[in-house]
């Protein structure tokens, strides 16, 4: 695993050492063993936003559940805010939003926040005040009196983030927080995270939305097949020379000029060709030499996405499967 070594002096919010998790399923005499995490070694620093990126089934949710004590590690140690997660004083300082959170449909949004606030030890006017504050923050004041059973996916997600924030957490752990949100909800949620970062909340996000990572996170880790592949600062990635794929838009009417070129069929079929950054100049030179009109060139992915695809070794596979350069 490649890791940045520039921040090892910073205080750790989460320290994970040699963490592994295997699941046994099936009958006891014929168990099927699934390895969900292999030797995870990771530090999440305080006052930073960390994004754990990975494909579905990569082990992101397992990692979060292990951190929160919802699952027990097969081997390895986890320290959260300097203590063990089983200590309720530690849990007092943590907010957690699960992927697609579910709540009892018989309660209103306000009652749910009241409940979760009371679990954080709040009561009376302090609780009422905090619930009002959180409802305002997640833009749910108007619907707070309605039963959760009538909420949309986006509203549930907002109440979910509300219950995570009710205890003014020092560490916020979110599993796919943007799931089910419309573009407006997505932007509002992103703004909430950015505001939380400003007040020094440590954020741990599980996601596969690259845009979210680029805008919110300071640092990212890439997990694939249960293994942490790379950890890097987002600023470093944005300044790096990670090869990005481009789409070269060519006038399909001029395809006759391209006979013999390897991408002639792709241009005839799609009106353009997908190439990696490394061969972009070469491709453009070839097209120009045949007097073909290049209508435009645009990047197909962000740098973070390209970094992610490279880390999990998916870029070449994608290039082949989309009919691009062979």
């Amino acid at each position: 695993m490649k890791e940045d070594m520039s921040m090892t002096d910073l205080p750790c919010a989460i320290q994970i050492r040699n963490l592994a998790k295997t699941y046994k399923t099936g009958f006891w005499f014929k168990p099927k063993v699934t390895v969900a995490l292999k030797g995870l070694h990771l530090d999440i620093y305080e006052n930073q936003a960390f994004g754990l990126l990975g494909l579905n089934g990569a082990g992101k949710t397992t990692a979060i559940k292990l951190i929160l004590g919802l699952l027990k590690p097969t081997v390895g140690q986890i320290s959260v805010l300097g203590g063990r997660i089983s200590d309720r004083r530690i849990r007092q300082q943590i907010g957690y939003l699960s992927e697609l959170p579910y709540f009892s449909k018989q309660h209103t949004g306000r009652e749910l926040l009241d409940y979760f606030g009371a679990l954080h030890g709040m009561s009376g006017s302090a609780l009422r005040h905090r619930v009002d504050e959180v409802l305002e923050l997640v833009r749910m004041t108007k619907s707070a009196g309605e039963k959760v059973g009538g909420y949309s996916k986006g509203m549930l997600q907002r109440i979910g983030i509300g219950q995570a924030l009710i205890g003014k957490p020092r560490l916020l752990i979110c599993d796919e927080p943007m799931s089910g949100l419309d573009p407006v909800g997505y932007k509002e949620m992103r703004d909430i995270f950015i505001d939380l970062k400003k007040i020094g909340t440590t954020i741990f996000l599980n996601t596969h939305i690259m845009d979210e990572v680029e805008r919110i996170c300071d640092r990212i880790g890439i997990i694939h097949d249960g293994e942490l592949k790379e950890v890097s600062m987002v600023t470093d990635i944005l300044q790096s020379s990670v090869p990005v794929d481009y789409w070269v838009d060519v006038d399909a009417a001029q395809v006759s000029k391209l006979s013999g070129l390897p991408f002639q069929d792709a241009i005839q079929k799609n009106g353009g060709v997908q190439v990696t950054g490394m061969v972009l100049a070469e491709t453009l030179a070839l097209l120009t030499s045949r007097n073909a009109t290049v209508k435009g060139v645009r990047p197909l992915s962000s740098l973070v996405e390209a970094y992610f695809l490279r880390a999990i070794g998916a870029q070449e596979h994608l290039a082949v499967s989309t009919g691009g350069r062979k």
Partner: protein
Amino acid sequence: MRKILTVGLFTFRELVRSKMLFVWLISVVVLCGLAFLLSLLSYGDILKIFMDLGLVGMEVSGLLVLLLSLAVTYNTEMDQKAIFLQMAKPLTKEEYLLGRVLGFFAMNALVVLGMGAVVVGLVVLVGGGVVPVLFYDCVVFLLLEMLVLSFLGLTFQMIGTTMVGVVLYSFFTILLGHCVGEIEWLLSKQLAPAARFLLQVVYYCLPNLEIFNLKDRVYDPTLVLHWAQWQDVLLYAFAYSFVVFLIGWISLEKREFK
């Protein structure tokens, strides 16, 4: 203690709003209908009929509500994973379990006491009789039975992996718990060693629900409950509940929230 009450109130509110009180309402309608019919047809002691019907109605509606409560909350907490967010909060597992039991018990108590009020109304207002003292003892015993079964049902929720399984385990435990006398009778017979061993395991694991059964003796003039009997029943109810609670707590401690 405050967190136990918080979880209890949350559970109780969820159950009340899940229309559990309809069971009580239906039971009341059936009870009043039957009482009316029997008062027209019967030549026997109408007060005794009201009382017998009422006590059976109290127990059946309480048990029905318990089974429904287990099904509803298993679906929300375990199937839909609402428990995840609560387990990540500064809430201990024992607070969570005791809070849930409190919620179940409060719901059951509401149904049993509500039904009891209807029975008293029938006996006093319709039958023109007096409610025997043993009726109130019987109600307390019934509440103790509901407490034991609330702990047991919750423990099945912690152990079980499906809603149907939890409801079936609870149902058959209730059924067999009322057959302890029959199991004792079987144990007094000649049995193969393996069968005897198995039956003894069942006998000692099952709750003895007959210990809480005073229904048939409410009008027994010879029966007077002494403090020693109360002590036995209370001790049994709390000891059994405690052991079952421990099993539930260990199961929750060991449970992985995948």
